[in-house]
């Protein structure tokens, strides 16, 4: 299931982030131990946030836009591909990227892998978990929209099937020439469930726009799929060398046994200058 964000309609009321906190039972308040950044950003208790962006148009006019930030729910998520204990995975029913805390080891490879830099860690906990938006997967299973979408008063967020929303997004862009002709999330890194349309250039709004159209896990798969064969070939090669060597030297006369050096001897022990 997907969500379409029409940035032009967002008024920055933060209803969505409050709804997110309420539904996911996340506490309010600032973190004590971590330095807080100037700009509002995600943290382990804030899974979605509205960031205010000021865009200076070439005409000299300035525009204020509000950008909702949360997990993009990639179709081919890097985090799930990177998770070595399957704690992050794509929910087969809803296509949300969900987190199963019982399986997590806390290696934080997902955080390194995520191209959108979304997952946050509970740095203040003794046994910390990874946190991120889970697209309210439990609500989705009941047929509801995610909490943030349900709470949006301006219609900036639309929930639905991804193909249907893509068609809709392109229809909106076609109808109104003020929109940028680009649906962010349609092709980026193989596509994401969250789609954005905007009347201001995406790079000005803090979006990373130099992504390839293939998911980053492509490179990992290309590598990992070769490993077993290379390892097997390498093992056979080494075994063959050892076998040949053994055949060749099997009939060599045994070496005379070297006298057991039970007495302590340390060679030319006058020369050392080490201290360990």
């Amino acid at each position, binding site marked *: 299931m997907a969500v379409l964000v029409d940035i032009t309609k967002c008024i920055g009321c933060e209803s969505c982030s409050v709804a997110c906190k309420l539904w996911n039972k996340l506490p309010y308040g600032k973190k004590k131990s971590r330095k807080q950044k100037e700009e509002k950003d995600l943290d382990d208790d804030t899974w979605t946030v509205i960031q205010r962006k000021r865009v200076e148009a070439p005409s000299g006019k300035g525009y204020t836009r509000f950008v909702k930030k949360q997990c993009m729910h990639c179709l081919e998520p890097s985090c799930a591909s*990177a998770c070595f204990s399957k704690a992050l995975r794509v929910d087969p029913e809803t296509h949300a990227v969900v987190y199963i805390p019982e399986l997590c*080891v806390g290696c934080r490879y997902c955080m390194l892998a995520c191209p959108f*830099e979304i997952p946050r860690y509970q740095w203040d906990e003794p046994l910390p978990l990874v946190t991120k938006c889970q697209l309210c997967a439990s609500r989705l299973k009941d047929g509801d929209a995610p909490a943030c979408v349900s709470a949006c008063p301006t219609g900036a967020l639309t929930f639905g099937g991804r193909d249907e929303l893509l068609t809709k997004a392109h229809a909106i862009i076609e109808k109104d020439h003020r929109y940028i002709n680009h649906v962010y999330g349609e092709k980026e890194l193989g596509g994401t469930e969250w789609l954005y349309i905007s009347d201001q250039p995406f790079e000005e709004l803090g979006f990373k726009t130099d992504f390839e159209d293939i998911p980053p896990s492509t490179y990992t798969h290309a590598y990992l799929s070769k490993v077993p064969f290379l390892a097997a070939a*390498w093992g056979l090669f080494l075994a063959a060398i050892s076998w040949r060597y053994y055949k060749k030297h099997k009939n060599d006369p045994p070496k005379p046994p070297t006298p057991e050096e039970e007495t302590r001897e340390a060679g030319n022990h006058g020369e050392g200058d*080490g201290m360990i």
Partner: protein
Amino acid sequence: MKKLNLYRCYRILGWDFTVTPARIVLLCLAGLMACVAVVRLLTGFQYVTHLTDETPWGLWISFDVLCGVALAGGGYSTALLVSGFKVKKYGVVARSALLTSLLGYILVMAGLFLDIGLWPHFWRPFVSWGYTSVLFEVFWCISIYTTILTLEFHEVITERMFKWLHPYILKILPVLVIIGLIFPMMHQSSLGGLFLIAKSKMFPLWWSPILPLYFLISSFFVGSAMVCVESDLARRNYGHEVDSDIMRQLTRVGGAIMAIYLVMKIVDITMHDEWGYVFLGTMQSNLYCLEMVLGIIIPLIIIFSPLAYKKWGVLTYSWLVVIGVVMNRLNCVFTAMYKSGDYFPSVFEFAVSIGLVSAGCLVYGVIVENFNVLGNKRATQHHILQKTDLL
């Protein structure tokens, strides 16, 4: 006043324990590490580390794990030459290289254990297979390889303890050696493979689709350099001399591989048209140039020039290569993904990394003094020989 003699050797139940001033310092550092480790395990990351969401992997992963595994590559690269390709003359360093690798891997496991947040869950990947992850492969390979190394080292241990096991160990040794040559090749390269997925976040000079191959090659050539550094330390402390011709030839094998590495990097940069990044003059490109010149080009000049016939030449080469590879690993984690620079390791993070290395040095000392590792005989600290009348 009689000067306090801190060089002592105690024999407890037939085992020798040497005390030197340096070892007392190392012991204190290891003790400090143990205290910090306990605090870390009980309270999480908040008091001990400076890790942030922007830099989820800090000093422990980059130094203890990435550098640790690379520097412990001495074991497999020597084993590959001696047991794989049957170049028997390098056998003199095989045992000490094996020991350094074993200790290195145990320290890597310790570092990893401290770095994972939910440490009581460390065994999860054994049952919940995230096989699409490179880390999954690394995790399995390092676990298996540490086991193999431990078994291989039983060849040395059973010479003194559990002697009845010795013939059996010798029988399975060829199999162990071959398995022990497959796994390190896999995970050395896979450590580079970890970064494949972070393409969009990395400075292009450090990212390449053949990053795993770079990691593999660099771990191979740093192996012989590390063996050389370690032999030098053993010579200083135990008077155990390795023939300098053998040392030079061994490092030259590494040097030749390093030349191939350099050529590959140059071809790679040319093919991807990245020369512009090299001379950008920014912090990232400058560090890249430093890494390549200091860690690759200067050592290559040293090792293939007459300087290699001087003892300090080989040693300088080795230290530069070791520093170069350490820089490369740190650069991959920090410099390549540098954003705001919020992260700098805390005192405690350094204390753990230093303490782990100290613990490794101490254990190395105890083992070489009690087992036949250096030159196939037991070693004795030369200060002990000079300053005590134990022998």
